[in-house]
């Protein structure tokens, strides 16, 4: 158990050298590496935090955008709905108008056809009645239809009440035109004389009388004095007949008939 002081001093030096060597090759590198790692981890954590914050901000931004988008979408949908409604109304109106137009056209056409039919019927009836009347008068009384018309007009003139007669006279006095006899057939001179005589009797002696023919009357004879008029016309009867026929052809009459 001896101490070699030379060895002791050598060992002190050795130890101090070892301290330096280990400090240089062990402690410093290890601590530096650990510190660097710590710093790096801290930096990464900070970075991650910053990124998370950024991501949060971004997420909020996107959420806001999504909300905005939704709102815009709702607006657009509302506008589109409104527009569609408007268009629907417009189309419906157009369709209604078209239907109305078509119906009116159709009604007009039906009316026209009805009128044509009635006209035809009137003409047909007129000629038929004329033939029947002519034949019946010829067979029964050996009388002519034209003759009977003249007699009928003269009878009417005779049987006019005072008031009507006064009105007719007044009308003939107010105009400078002669009294006009219009017939659908040609009047022979004897018939003209009778008529002229009757007019002179009822109006004034020497009043001018003119005779002419017109197919517009259908079948009849008319006396015209100014604005006053007196006539016997088959058209009146036919008119009444066609009115009855029209009434019979109308849907109301039809439905009544069905009810019955």
């Amino acid at each position, binding site marked *: 158990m001896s101490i070699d*002081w030379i*060895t002791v001093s050598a*060992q002190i030096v*050795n130890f101090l*050298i070892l301290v330096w060597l*280990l400090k240089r090759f062990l402690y410093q590198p290890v601590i*530096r*590496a650990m510190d660097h790692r710590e710093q790096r981890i801290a930096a990464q954590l900070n970075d991650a935090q910053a990124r998370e914050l950024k991501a949060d901000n971004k997420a909020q931004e996107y959420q806001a955008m999504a909300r905005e988008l939704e709102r815009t979408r709702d607006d657009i949908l509302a506008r589109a709905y409104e527009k569609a409604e408007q268009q629907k109304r417009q189309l419906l109106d157009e369709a209604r108008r078209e239907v109305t137009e078509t119906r009116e056209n159709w009604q007009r056409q039906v009316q026209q056809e009805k009128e044509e039919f009635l006209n035809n019927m009137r003409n047909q009836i007129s000629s038929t009645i004329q033939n029947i009347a002519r034949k019946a008068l010829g067979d029964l009384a050996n009388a002519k239809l034209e003759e009977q018309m003249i007699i009928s007009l003269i009878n009417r003139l005779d049987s006019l009440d005072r008031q009507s007669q006064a009105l007719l006279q007044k009308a003939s006095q107010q105009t400078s035109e002669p009294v006009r006899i219009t017939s659908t057939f040609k009047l022979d001179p004897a018939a003209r004389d009778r008529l002229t005589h009757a007019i002179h009797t009822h109006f004034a002696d020497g009043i001018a009388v003119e005779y002419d023919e017109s197919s517009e009357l259908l079948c009849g004879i008319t006396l015209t004095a100014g604005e006053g008029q007196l006539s016997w016309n088959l058209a009146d009867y036919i008119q009444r007949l066609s009115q009855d026929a029209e009434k019979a052809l109308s849907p109301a009459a039809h439905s009544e008939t069905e009810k019955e």
Partner: protein
Amino acid sequence: MTISPDSIIFWQWGAASLNATIVYTWLVMALLTLISWLATRRFSSGTKISRWQNLLEVLVAGIRDQIKQVSHQQPGKYLPFVGTLFLFIAMANLLNVVPGYMAPTGSLSTTTALAICVFVAVPIYGIAYEGPLNYLAHYVRPTLLMLPFNIIGEISRTIALAVRLYGNIMSGTVIVAILLSLTPYFFPVVMQLLGLLTGMIQAYIFAILAMVYIASATSAHAEKQVPAKTENQN
């Protein structure tokens, strides 16, 4: 029987001699330096590290933690000194398993040298912390009468430090040598294993005691720091 490696002389030139203690010390120094250099030259500061780096980081971090626990101070200034004490003694003792090797710590000259280093380091650290007057004031506390006892205590603990390490390692070597001559097969191996354990424990004890002495020299400073820390924690 050779007890101390001091007595094995490899080379002699006048009064200067190159004995086994110095040679094996150099061997230990070379090994430590080489391992450190090899391991740390490719150190990375990333998260993926080599096994050697991991080992050394665990070692250094462990020493730092121990210093921090004992001193309640930042370990940076004490790490080279205390850490080297531990690593040198541990490595010197561990190599005992190598046949033909003699631990330099089994020489009283080595342990004395280490104890002297501690003996010198304590006042150096104390003065560096508190200034010479404050440090020297420790010796006359609580009264001037305590000065001689403090000085005796300082010296005796240094001697105890040296002799404790020397005694433990030397005794281990001696016991193995004696057992080898008595029961050559089983017991020496067991004693070798026990010697490894003792060697590690002694390295730990030496380093921790050195740190305790240094810490006690800077205790005034540490006491000021600790309440401040606890206040902060509260």
